[in-house]
């Protein structure tokens, strides 16, 4: 359960390549104070967990 959105930022990069990177990142605080980073791929729409 997300308790708070600590930060969010957008990355648009590698636009010169065939597969440009366009992502919206969120740093989320979960129950129990665990913090994770997820992003939404703005081209495909899917959500991913950024593990590192």
């Amino acid at each position, binding site marked *: 359960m997300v308790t708070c959105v600590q930060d969010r930022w957008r*990355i648009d*990069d*590698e636009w010169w390549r065939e597969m440009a*990177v366009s*992502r919206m990142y969120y740093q989320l605080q979960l129950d129990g104070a665990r913090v994770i980073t997820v992003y939404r791929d703005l081209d495909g729409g899917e959500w991913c967990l*950024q593990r*590192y």
Partner: protein
Amino acid sequence: MRLACLTVPNFRIALERTRARELAGRAVAIGEPPPGANEILDCSPEASALGIRNGMPLRDARTLVPDLLLLPPDPVFYSQSFDVLLDALEDAEPLVEPGDEGTAFAAVDALADADSQFDAASRLLQAVAGRTGVDASVGVAEGKFVAWCAAVVSAPGEATVVPAGQEAAYIAPLRTSFLPVSYDVHRKLALYGMRSMGDVALLDVGALQAQFGQKGRRLHDLVRGIDPAPFLPRARIEPIAGSLTMPAPTVNGAALLIAGRQLVGRLLQQPSMRYRQVRQLRLRFALLDGGSWERTLTFREPLSDEAGIIFVLRKLIEPLQLTGPVEAMTLEFLGCTGETGKQRSLLFAEQSRRRAQLIASLRQLKAQFGGESHVTRMVEVEPWSRIPERRYALIDYDH
């Protein structure tokens, strides 16, 4: 200490003129073309009279003097000629210290009278002219600085002996531009209206130190003809060198590195390298267009292992941008020392021992079962990337 300073004005131009007599009397300059420094390295007095200066961009020089004869540098030829010059000096006087290219100091008998010292200076001039064909000038005085001043103000082929005790009086009328100090010090002296060394000598040490700090003390000594710089005669070293002609002229860094690797292996196998380590190496390239390239590199610590020397060589060769393809390579080991023990940290020794064991085991497994090793490690690839997964990569552990 009584020293003779021998100097060849415009050393590189003088050498170029020995191998191309038609350059005599012409406005000639040596310039390093791009991708090198793209500036004038040396110029003849005729070119200086037209406004050409060392360090001037080549484009400006060509604009200023359109018919300037511009030669590519040949550093290997210059450095070999300088070695010949030093050998010639050593044959005349046994203790010789090399200075900047084209300048050297030799110890002369301090007890000899002025005539004998003049004879010694003449012997040096003759030795150099006979062996290298260039006209030098010599100054004999107490300490390096006054001897150098006397050599510079002497005409080519002439010698000047500054009588003992007359050093300060001799340099007093000379301009402050002779002083080997930084641009800032020169600028300040000019701002204070001090044109000659005699002007500076009128100031006491306190005033000079107040203006120039630590350099003030040195300045105070120099303008009084006192130079405490020690005289360090060179030791004769038999170089350990090897050459290799490239199969085809190349500018490819990988091909040059392979050639370098071969030379390192060959030199390390020489009997004279047994139980010895290398302190310095000199790499020379003969270029296809007739030019050359040279660098001397000093290691942080003496090396005797092939991998260590090749690592340094790679750092030298990889970023190289040459003006032409390399035809031949010469590698020279300089300053070889006896083997010395190395104190290593116990912790890191254990770490590297375990890593070597691990790599050996992985290779063994790969050889036994074939295919890829699935033991990987993470390395930084693009640590600056904004995309996290671009920053690192997984590679085989044993690579």
